[in-house]
């Protein structure tokens, strides 16, 4: 026997984790991540109101600094629609309509991508640059970093869809050992059925994505409407 | 235990060697700075210094070729980039400064008038009392000794500007002469007050915050 086998855990002795553990962990993490995200954007909210109140050197917002309301609104509408679709997809998944969930998931993924594209289009056409005063700084920093968060969520949605697609044909029961994990030497795993591969993460995503969309609406309100 | 003991000794020895190396490296880096220069003096009461200011130090004398800098002429008539000078106490220092740089302009116009000199500052032979704030190219200032010398610029449309140090007197330049008295022994910093580090916020980065360029020490002994 190799040294690996000698020292690896004997899964016959060690009891397995309760199946709901992953869901609980991801749910908690989703909420914690949302609170951290809130504090991150709070810094930009603070920067916005602080610089606006000070208006140093009269350079808070020169007249030509005026991003397009249309593009900004469309981007946020796409974000909100995507979050709603993920939520509806989650309801489908809970009800066992796995096909419908995948459909809505791909749509949501596309919409999130559209939001990023619209944001990029806006930067390209807005007619002012980062050096144009306080508002321009806050606007570019805020939307830019929000777009980074959008990309992270796009990654998250994609992983779920990829998993859902990969196991779409397995109706129930655990996949064979070594198959699901991608680790050939793995002897046991806590995957019980294809649904458990997606559901916990989808629950957490649904919450986080709705939260991030909420921050998006706040972003839109502060940057375009106020 | 035997081979394990040897292994342990090797590990401990290795750690010690690495730790010592880190220590020496940090210590060596921390003490690195421009070398000190002692001008040959005729007497303990009087020293002559010849210095020049250039817009770009060039790749030969510095890893930061585009930085503005002071240079000093050493005892073998070579131009050196060092700004740490050792001078005798209570001595008169006669400085001849060749400036090859254009105007940068002062942030605080007050610093456009010479202060604390013995006699007056002369620019190309003419006495200078004050300079308009958009004029100065650099200043030579030792705040602790109360010395401030604004340096007149080369005209923007100079025909034969000097691009890279060391500059020769055949290029367009201004000649500034002044005399100051060193005081009690001590380490006195000197610096430039003109925000001349182009590209840095408020003109005060890079060469303005690095010894050997626009900052130095007058070590009076």
């Amino acid at each position: 026997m190799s040294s690996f086998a000698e020292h690896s855990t004997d899964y016959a002795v060690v009891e397995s984790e309760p199946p709901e553990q992953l869901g609980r962990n991801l749910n908690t993490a989703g909420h914690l991540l949302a609170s951290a995200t809130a504090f991150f954007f709070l810094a930009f909210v603070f920067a916005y109101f602080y610089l606006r109140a000070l208006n140093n050197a009269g350079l808070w917002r020169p007249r030509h600094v005026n991003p397009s309301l249309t593009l900004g609104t469309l981007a946020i509408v796409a974000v909100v629609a995507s979050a709603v679709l993920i939520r509806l997809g989650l309801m489908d998944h809970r009800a066992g309509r796995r096909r419908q969930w995948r459909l809505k998931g791909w749509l949501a993924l596309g919409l999130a991508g559209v939001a990023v594209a619209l944001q990029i289009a806006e930067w390209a056409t807005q007619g002012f640059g980062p050096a144009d005063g306080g508002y321009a700084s806050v606007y570019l920093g805020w939307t830019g970093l929000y777009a980074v968060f959008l990309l992270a969520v796009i990654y998250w949605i994609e992983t779920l869809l990829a998993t859902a697609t990969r196991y779409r044909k397995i109706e129930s029961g655990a996949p064979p050992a070594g198959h699901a994990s991608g680790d050939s030497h793995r002897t046991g795993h806590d995957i019980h059925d294809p649904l458990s591969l997606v559901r916990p993460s989808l629950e957490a995503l649904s919450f986080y994505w709705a939260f991030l969309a909420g921050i998006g609406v706040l972003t839109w309100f502060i940057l375009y409407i106020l | 235990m035997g081979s394990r003991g040897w292994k342990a000794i090797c590990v401990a020895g290795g750690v010690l060697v690495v730790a010592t190396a880190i220590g020496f490296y940090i210590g060596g880096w921390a003490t690195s700075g421009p070398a000190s220069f002692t001008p040959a003096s005729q007497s303990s009461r009087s020293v002559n210094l010849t210095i020049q200011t250039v817009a770009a130090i060039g790749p030969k004398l510095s890893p930061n070729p585009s930085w503005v800098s002071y240079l000093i002429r050493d005892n073998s008539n070579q131009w050196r980039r060092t700004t740490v000078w050792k001078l005798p106490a209570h001595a008169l220092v006669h400085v001849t400064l060749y400036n090859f740089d254009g105007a940068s302009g002062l942030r605080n116009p007050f610093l456009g008038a010479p202060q604390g000199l013995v006699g007056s500052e002369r620019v190309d032979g003419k006495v200078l009392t004050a300079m308009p704030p958009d004029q100065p190219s650099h200043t030579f200032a030792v705040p602790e000794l109360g010395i401030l010398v604004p340096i007149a610029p080369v005209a923007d449309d100079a025909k034969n500007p000097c691009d890279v140090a060391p500059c020769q007197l055949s290029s367009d330049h201004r000649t500034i002469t002044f005399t100051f008295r060193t005081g009690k022994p001590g380490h006195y910093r000197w610096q430039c007050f003109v925000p001349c580090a182009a590209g840095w916020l408020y003109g005060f980065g890079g060469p303005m915050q690095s010894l050997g360029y626009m900052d130095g020490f007058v070590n009076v002994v």
Partner: protein
Amino acid sequence: MSANAAVPTPPRRRVVGYNLLTGLVLGVVGYYVGWWIGHHIHATSIGYFADTNQNDIAVFLGYFLSVVGFLAGLGFLSYPWARVRGYPPSLREKETAGVARYFGLCTDHKVVGIQYLIGIGVFFFIGGLNAMLIRFELLRPGGQAFPAGNYLTLVGLHGTMMMGIMSSAILGPFANYVVPLMIGARRMAFPRIEALTFWLLMAAGTLLATTIFFGGFPTGWTGYEPLNDQANSGMDSYIVFFGLVGISMLLLGLNMIATIVTMRAPGLTWSRLPIFCWGVISTASLMLLASPVLIAALLMATLDRTAQTSFFIPSAGGSTYLYQNLFWVFGHPEVYILALPGFAVVLELLPVFARKPLWGYRLAVAGMLGVTLLSWLVWQHHLFVSGINGDLRPFYMLSTELISIPTGFTFLCGMMTLWRGRIRYTVPMLFCLAWFFNFLIGGLSGVFLSDVPSDVTTHGSFFSMAHFHYTIMGGLVFTFFAAIYYWIPKMTGFQLNDRLGKIHFWTMFIAFNSTFAPLFAIGFMGQPRRVVTYPSHLQFLNDWVSVSAFVLGASMLVFLANFVWSLVFARVPAPRNPWGSRSLEWQLPSPVPVHNFDKIPVFTDDPYGYGDDDGRVPAVVPVGAPAGGGS
């Protein structure tokens, strides 16, 4: 489990595998790729690089890709890549024995704990060395041992290294190691993230050290704008360092909270949770919420330095106060990120060595949560004389002083735990008792800084420097060593030498006080912080401090000698429960087997039941029979 469980095939040995060496190589490669890309970005707004031969975009991109390459080399990217291809979340097992797992991505929380201990130790050593050099410079009033710019970089490196790396000094090594054991779990909630926090911290520390290749940075650990924007490319290392530390702390906090919330064994109610875990929760929640503000502030600074935004440039529509506010919104909770783990360690260890239950458990919890909450409301006391509008100063004075109330809870609970106990003066106990003394002085001197009229003199002077060294070094580093002496037998299975431990304690305690007590006087006598030169009449006190500081540095070498001697040469096996503790981790074998528990234990009581059964010890909290070692 699936029926057709195959015979496990050992992982192939490859010449190029995921390990530290690959990580370092890819890190260097990544840096140069980023540097190259950065030099090929052309935009009209950044054309001024030509004037400075300093291209911050290239440096930032270099650092970014360097970190990506480093993590890829360690194997962190293979999991996200597997997820992209649709493989489900599952843990890769890395539970082989051997030294190799300490040099790579390992998801065993016990390995990560030991990695943290050694990794943090290395940077603690470098940070301490910087302090020695600073004190060497200050032996003479005129200075000149180091050129002024290098001196400022040393000051910045010392402060930044200590504040950044040591934020995880207790949570990194000890919470990672013992929290799952204390709460009866086999792992942390997110083992891969746990490993990531460690390697991010190491990448951060290494990148910070490279600042000396880019001219250092002149701002100290606070990185105030607009000096920050004005500085050389060395500043970029500072920004990247704190950014990575921020991400590392954020994830560490998230993982800790999630673990304690979701992974507790049955019967471990909130009121039975070991007090150490409460301290970890308090610290972790500050890490989770304060780090994002720091990351945001640093990203703004990054944009100012590269994309020409003007968040912090008053003449272009920004404000220097914006940075100060954002920094201290993070910075003051950060101070408690450093202090609270000290509270936790002290309260956890006192019952063991006083042989009494923790006195006033709920008050102790309330104290730590109270500090956590109040630490959000005090940040502007750093701006009392900054020229920001002064109307709120009475509020911040009050809120700052209010913090002494929950801090007092900790003191009361600790003191009353000792009262009528049977106090044993072991080495960890000595460090805990020193905490009371140091934190008392740190706390009382803090009152001077919280009080505006008094702060006018003490602010920005050596007084405030002495104050925060009493709270952070006296509060964190002393408990860091308490934790080392306490938990090392469990973590390694070997005892540390007791006599060397006591020599270490007494030299460190005396030298520490001899170093920092005179600094209060020096500050009161008018010496500002971070100066390279000072008036000559302060030379005697400064020399005294410097010499004491060298002794303090030497005491660390005593510890290092003890550590190496005991763990490498002497190797005296430690008993399972040398301190007679009732906490769950001590009921397991030393060192702990790979999967901690064969059967998850069930809690029926808290771990502080000293004296409950006729004074006989130790009564073992009922647990499932622990697994017996490897084979």
